[in-house]
């Protein structure tokens, strides 16, 4: 008796829920139908699109690629676009990522605002150079126990990619167990910018990270993926001063590309790379960097370990990269500093350098979230 009541009750609840869901779906198709709307870009180009979706994904469908690292979740704040008309009021999900000046310039977070009416937007011209690539995983190697290096061959378009050393691309993986739809994340390019047909990426495993888990556990050599780019303004600062590169973990990737640039452009500025990890087995690209150090006499490689154990037989530096700054960089040094790694590391390095009298415009950084 109790069982039948229970089963019948559950059945009844399901039927009522299904009816209500049907009713809501019908209502949704009428109420949330925004029809065709027109997006005007830079007073120049007009796009006819279906309204109702976020601006970022609407633009991606039209092959206009706005930089974004989080994949439209509203957590990175990179996908800023100037919306001159039709953006609606500023949303509470946007305001944490926008400064007062940016709000005055009508900047909006494009993954958060929906296209509901005709819009006028402004996009920097260089973003039209961003393209979508069909890439093949040519080689996958284990750099450390949680970092993989993947080499991608660009299949399409045939003329490959042109980028500035330090820039990043968005790598997109297909839907799989962890995600019902394709997802993309940003990865800095480690390979030389002279090489237009291959990209080296350094991908650290992130706990429950959709893209990194796919790369670590599912991606096989010869698999095809989608990539978009290049994006970002991290680059080698131009001057006659010395060059300091500071990286931890996968933050080494853009530094590798910049070191290639120093090599092939025969830049003679004195260059130092601080690379911090925890243990010796996490020091990837070690042999490559040591041989580069032997070949380029202006380049010094200083690895440091924060958790070296006595049995590791480590003769190099110990401690964090900030301690290297304390030892190696004297006050008011004539140096351009390039930092890449976790946000807390970047922040503590910047604070320390400012305290040492390095002007803020000689410091450039890329925070890996």
């Amino acid at each position, binding site marked *: 008796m109790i069982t039948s009541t229970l089963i019948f009750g559950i059945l009844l*609840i399901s039927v009522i*829920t299904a009816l*209500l869901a049907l009713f809501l779906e019908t209502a949704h198709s009428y109420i949330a139908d925004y029809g065709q709307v027109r997006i005007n870009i830079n007073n120049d180009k007009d796009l006819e699109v279906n309204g109702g979706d976020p601006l970022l994904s609407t633009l991606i469908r039209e092959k206009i690629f706005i930089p974004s690292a989080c994949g439209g979740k509203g957590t990175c704040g990179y996908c800023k676009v100037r919306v001159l008309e039709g953006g609606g009021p500023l949303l509470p999900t946007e305001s944490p990522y926008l400064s007062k000046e940016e709000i005055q310039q009508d900047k909006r977070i494009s993954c958060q605002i929906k296209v509901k009416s005709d819009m006028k937007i402004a996009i920097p011209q260089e973003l039209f150079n961003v393209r979508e690539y069909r890439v093949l995983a040519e080689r996958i190697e284990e750099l450390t126990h949680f970092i993989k290096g993947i080499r991608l061959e660009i299949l399409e378009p045939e003329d490959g990619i042109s980028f500035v050393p330090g820039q990043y691309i968005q790598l997109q993986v297909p839907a799989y167990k962890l995600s019902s739809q394709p997802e993309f994340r940003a990865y800095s390019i480690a390979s030389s910018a002279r090489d237009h047909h291959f990209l080296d990426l350094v991908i650290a495993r992130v706990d429950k990270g959709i893209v990194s888990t796919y790369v670590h556990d599912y991606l096989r050599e010869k698999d095809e993926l989608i990539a978009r780019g290049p994006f970002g303004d991290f680059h080698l600062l131009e001057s006659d001063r010395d060059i300091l590169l500071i990286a931890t973990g996968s933050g080494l990737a853009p530094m590798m590309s910049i070191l290639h640039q120093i090599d092939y452009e025969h830049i003679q500025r004195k260059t130092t790379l601080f690379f911090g990890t925890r243990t010796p087995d996490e020091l990837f690209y070690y042999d490559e960097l040591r041989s580069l150090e032997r070949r380029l006499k202006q380049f010094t490689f200083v690895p440091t370990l924060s958790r070296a154990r006595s049995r590791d037989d480590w003769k190099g530096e110990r401690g964090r990269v900030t301690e290297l700054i304390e030892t190696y960089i004297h006050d008011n040094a004539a140096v351009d500093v390039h930092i890449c790694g976790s946000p807390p590391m970047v922040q503590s390095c910047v604070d320390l350098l400012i305290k040492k009298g390095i002007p803020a415009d000689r410091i450039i950084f890329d925070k890996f979230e």
Partner: protein
Amino acid sequence: MNEISLATLFFAAIFTNNILLTNFLGLCPHIAISRDLKSAMGIGAAVVFVTTLTSVLNHVIYYNVLIPFHLEHFRFIIFIIVIASFVQLVEMTIDRYFTRLYVVLGIFLPLITVNCAILGISLFMVIREYTFAQSLVYGAGSGIGWMLAITLVGSIREKIQKHPNLPRGLVGPGITLIITGLLSLAFMAFSGMIQIQ
């Protein structure tokens, strides 16, 4: 069967048995969104819509489906599901046609689902054995009563903000509770006029 007349019930639901000021249900959005009159009116109107329709629909489901099949104890789940879907409908409509209001209400719009006043109204309707017409009137009346309470507090708070000499510790929820308490005392004076429980 409850013998009370429709007009009396409607009046009682708004004034003598105001769901917020005498039963103290739905206080959370009341405190959060009563900062100014306009958004208070917005959330109030949304609540009136939801209470009216859900009390009617829940009445139909309770007496025509749950009672015949002896499934009265499922009423909590069913009532909440019905309320949740109507809130979805309201959210969709406000997002489409009143974008500014949608931004002001923010998270509190979907949270109407768990506004205890709304489930309270459906449950009172069952306990007090209202007829279909009585449920309609009671649902609408209680919704209007809740809207009345929040707009009163909203307009008082708007006036207070123009003369900001409040002690620091009272700013926000503190003064709102005090205002609501005083209003509640005033509404208590009505309660002798009609008894609907």
